């Protein structure tokens, strides 16, 4: 979770990723951010997020995104 928080905070140091649950809905993340997050998760945690999991629900909060990472790590 810490790795993910570091990636997110690096992109938007002004956003409270602990509480925000509308990262996509409120346009806090843009396409560059999504690309960076997926690329960094891949290089730092060796997690590949398949295209069909790249949906708004999984990116609206750090919590949801981390749940996805854990799910993929278990597979």
């Amino acid at each position: 979770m810490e790795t993910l928080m570091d990636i997110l905070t690096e992109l938007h140091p002004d956003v409270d990723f602990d509480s925000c649950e509308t990262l996509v809905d409120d346009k806090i993340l843009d396409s560059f951010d999504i690309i960076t997050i997926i690329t960094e998760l891949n290089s730092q945690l060796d997690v590949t997020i398949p295209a069909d999991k790249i949906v708004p629900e999984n990116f609206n909060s750090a919590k949801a995104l981390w749940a996805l990472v854990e799910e993929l790590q278990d597979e």
Partner: protein
Amino acid sequence: MNNILEYLEKTVKEVPDKTAFKGGGTEYTFRQLVDVSRSIGTVLAARDVRKKPVAVYMKKHPDMIVSFFGVLQAGAFYIPIDEEMPAHRIQYILESIAPEVVICDDSTLENAKKLCTKSEVLYFKDICGLPADDAVLAEIRSRALDIDPMYVVFTSGSTGTPKGVTACHRSVIDYVETLSETLGFSRDTIFGNQAPLYFDAHLKDVYPTLKFGSTTCLIPKELFMFPVKLMEFLNENRVNTICWVVSALSMVSAFGTFKTIKPEYVHTVAFGGEVFQIKQFNAWREALPGASFTNLYGPTEATGFSCWYKVDREFVPGEVIPIGRPFRNTEVLLIKEDGTEAKDGEPGEMCIRGTAVTLGYFRNPEKTAESFVQNPLNDSWPEIIYKTGDIAMKNERGELVFLSRKDYQIKHMGHRIELGEIEAIVSNLDAIKSVCCIFDDERKKIVLYYIGDIEKGELSAKLKELMPRYMLPNSLIPLDTMPFTATGKIDRNLLKKRYMEGK
């Protein structure tokens, strides 16, 4: 033909009830485009805007496009302003342009009233259904010249202030004709529009649609974050032609989207704005073996794109897709520093000659004179060329190949950005003592180094108010001291070297 609207007027006679533009739950047929644009044009004509700027400050929507045409009906030229642009930039644009009128919609009405203190604010819904005055509009058209401005779009300026590139009808007509013949657009074309409407990039979908009676689907911006949904959109709308920035195409291929879903109808793919990584490009080619792929190159100052290369051979990783050759009726000169022409294999600055060269920068004679100059190869009559600042050479096949920039302009997510503009905006903040911006070409990140008594979070929040989203640095790094060169300038190269080695 001397007015871009003649495309619409010819097409509406042939396919009045066909859908021209759709998006955001709204559709316009060609008949509706004519009717609504004439209503808006009549309202504007009553305000005597002929040959004057009218700002269109709206969200990306078919209403915005029909408003452009309304402005043109009145013999005026449009300045598109995006709903998401930060207030600071909107204010700058409005002050430098001083439009008579600003057209706005639900999403911008409140802001427009706050920001447009010197212009009249018109609300789209109030003016789109009023009766048209045929006589007034005909009189305006009878006085129209093809050298009159059609739009002003703003592009990044290295000193911190954006420059308003001003283009006339004739340049856009030339562009639409040559682009269409190169990419083979027709009445059956269904465009999937990615480009924002506030750049010249909107021309390539919007005006061929009028010329041929094609259809353009405006793709919701957020779909470019979610590749599977994006592909579903293309398939649902039977989109067959996409002219996108490279970063949008790469996003789809890099995430392995084609394993789940492929675009079923796309037969024409054009891309530009940045270098396409061969690995990503080949993934697209593999997914769409029957489609044509064309690389496009060109600066805003030459209307849209100036050069094209239709991919006709295999590329392996490490190779570069050439930018090819100029469109018909455009010439690209490669000029060396001494003002003479580069020979084959020699690098030179790409200088563009032709009808597509725009009129220059709005109310900015100094900047215009720097880049729109007399052709150094011609001392016999006045002939303006545009100096792009891009260095290129011809390869052994005679194709132009992009090499580098002369300055600190970068391409990021398809947007053209001067690092100097970012630095200028940041250094204006009271808390900032020193600043330097570099671009990580590998990870495509804008990195900002700064010295100042301000936390990263606070700085990030401030910058979001001051610059458009695409210009925001992707990484902020506070420093205690800034490295300097022997001549006393900030050592940009050293910072970049350190950054690239550190990661």
